[in-house]
């Protein structure tokens, strides 16, 4: 706890930060004596790790590497008599496809348009759930429930809810007097994109709420008490104590979610199948479409592109967060400043 009230002691508080999902930082050992590393101990560690390592190597990395070679071959399931090497032909086909521009634009919209509302609403929910009130446990369970449902199933549910003639969305909007006649949500490419974003926001809010709530619960009450004594208002407490304190969690959750949403074709696939007129495809649903056509070469090329983009993104993001120092140390400083102000 003291680690947060003085900037220097943030270092020693690092182990407890890690528990909340922050990355391990170097030099955490401080003056503590390290356990001696012996060959026997190394063997024990290796033996424990072996099953998992073998499993991951066999079922994740091997198929990945074996599969990625298809990207450079003429690998079409409809005709496997000719699987010759074709260099970068599959990549060229991806880049020159007329749908590529739309797909890229949609992917950006899908990621940004999902994550911003998810973060804002998730944060608000977490703040609300942090307070103590009757049946809080029940409310928490209910709010976290969507996260347990498969994305494809949610896609199918929302496909019916957004159905123009028989769906509940139009029915409610009409009863509320907001629209005069039913909106054909999934029949128009623009409204279809809105519909899938609404569904995804609903689905993903939960994850932010869970992560942020866990982080919020680690903020010591003393800080808020001190802030209140110093006369800090609600907004100032939020921006000077709460947000700086949980910044590492926020950053990491956003990072994770960007990768997951980018890689989340289930919902769109269940809801619109990429239609109408192929105008709601994101990179990953488009990849599924190409796979269904049997062109594993082109789909594999697209898959490698996705991996490359996400790797670059993850490296950039991790570097950026490390440079800023982040976490409790920053939060401690911010908090202190907030209280003093």
């Amino acid at each position, binding site marked *: 706890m003291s680690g947060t009230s003085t900037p220097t002691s943030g270092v020693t508080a690092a182990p407890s930060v890690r528990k909340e999902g922050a990355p391990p930082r170097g030099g955490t050992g401080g003056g503590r004596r390290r356990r001696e590393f012996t060959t*026997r*101990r190394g*063997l*024990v560690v290796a*033996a*424990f790790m*072996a*099953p998992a390592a*073998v*499993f991951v190597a066999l079922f994740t990395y091997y198929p990945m590497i074996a599969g990625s070679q298809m990207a450079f071959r003429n690998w079409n*399931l*409809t*005709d*496997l*008599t000719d699987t010759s090497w074709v260099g970068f032909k599959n990549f060229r086909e991806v880049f020159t496809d007329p749908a590529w521009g739309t797909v890229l634009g949609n992917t950006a919209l899908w990621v940004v348009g999902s994550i911003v509302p998810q973060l804002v609403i998730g944060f608000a929910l977490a703040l609300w759930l942090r307070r103590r009130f009757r049946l809080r446990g029940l409310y928490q369970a209910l709010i976290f429930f969507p996260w347990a449902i498969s994305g494809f199933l949610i896609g199918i549910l929302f496909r019916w809810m957004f*159905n*123009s*003639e*028989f769906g509940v969305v139009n029915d409610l909007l009409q009863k509320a007097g907001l629209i005069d*006649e*039913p909106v*054909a*949500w*999934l*029949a*128009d490419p623009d409204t*279809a994109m809105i519909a899938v974003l609404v569904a995804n926001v609903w689905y993903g809010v939960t994850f932010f709420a869970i992560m942020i709530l866990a982080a919020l619960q680690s903020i010591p009450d003393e800080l808020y008490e001190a802030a209140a004594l110093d006369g800090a208002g609600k907004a100032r407490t939020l921006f000077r104590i709460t947000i700086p304190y949980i910044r590492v969690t926020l950053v990491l959750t956003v990072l994770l979610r960007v990768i997951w949403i980018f890689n989340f074709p289930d919902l769109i696939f269940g809801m*619109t*199948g990429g*239609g*109408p*007129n*192929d105008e709601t495809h994101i990179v990953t649903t488009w990849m599924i*479409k190409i*796979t*269904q*056509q*049997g*062109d594993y070469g082109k789909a594999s090329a697209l898959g490698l592109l996705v991996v490359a983009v996400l790797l670059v993104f993850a490296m950039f993001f991790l570097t950026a967060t490390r440079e800023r120092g982040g976490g409790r140390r920053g939060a401690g400083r911010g908090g202190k400043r907030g209280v003093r102000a």
Partner: protein
Amino acid sequence: MRRRTAALALGTAAAMVLTGCSTMSPGESGTVTLNMVESLTNPARTDLLEELIADFEEKNPKVKVNLVSPPTEQADQKLQQMLQSGSGVDVLEVRDITVGPWSNNGWLYDMKKDLAGWKGWDALTDNAVAASEDDKGRTYFVPYGFYGLSLFHRTDLIKEAGFDKPPATWEELLEQASKIHDPSSRRYGYAFRGGANAHSNATAAIEAYVADRIDPANGYLLKDGKTIFSAPEALDAMEMYLKLFKQASPKSSVAWGYPEMVEGFSNGSTAFLLQDPEVIATVSESKSLDANQWSTAPLMAGPSGKTVQPLATAGWGVAEGSKHKAEAVKLVQFLSEGEASTRFTKGNSLVPILKAAAEDDFYRSGPWASYVTMTENPDTYLVVTQPRGVAWWTEWQQRADTDVQKMILGKLTPKELLAGWDAYWTEKWKK
């Protein structure tokens, strides 16, 4: 202590590897285990198949059948992966759309010789015999039934609108559906297929319009060797089809696939639906419709008074990689004859493969009668082989579905659509 934990960890690892291997060991001597994989899976159908398999196992005590039922959406892809690996499949469900590429890749076993003396052939309908051979006379699967289109219609709404019988032609359908269509009171004329598989109903309309000139061996060709999409009648068909969307179908049907179409009809809001016989079972269970409010009619004809039955089919085949081909063929035979076949086609609402079915009361009455009418009048309801076995079929489906959506969204004219389709097939067949 440490030594013990290390031993424990190593033991766990070894156990994992060993359990992985144990499934590869051979079974009891003399007993053969067949792996059977289905594709168009649904829970009721799987139960029925399990029952049929139990009968088979009872008659063949030395054969055990292990039924694998992947979810329908991924089933064909799963099968492809299993076939590609060369083992794990003995008997499998082969569809008219998968037989081409799979046999091309050498994954399917030609059962021609094994079935040469099979007495089951005599009991099969001509359609079934024809569908069990490819253009080079090889038998990669024996069909278990057919999926064919008929017009589900609301008898009460047709009467209210002042008509005395269901439409017999596409033009009449347009007229009746337009008159019934009234979106303000949530009543729709036609359950238009704009989503997945949109092209299938569009090509059904085109084939009806060119029925006089169509090549019976290839439903996408005219007798003169040009594609059906190049014919002037095809343009009439597509213009009529576009009107059917604009004047008689709900706006959101741009995105309607199978579930929405069937829901639209069975919840009582839509008057006409073009669908497979399996929908009879679904509509029969509808709480919004009484049995006397609906029926089926034969597929609508074009201007010549004829139409084309776009029969789709699937059946049971044997994998080339199977080590128990004799037993596998035996299972295929068992499923394709007598009681087992009848139970399967009735249970799944399929157009039957056995001649005897035409005498069965089940097929002569109610919504089923239109299928018998179509089968018994092959001069009006032409049986034409569709080019569904070509390697590029999936690519074509996806392209054509998107084109139909473009047309009804106003981004492509019927003329442009047909020119594109004509060019596509001409190009593909040139290769």
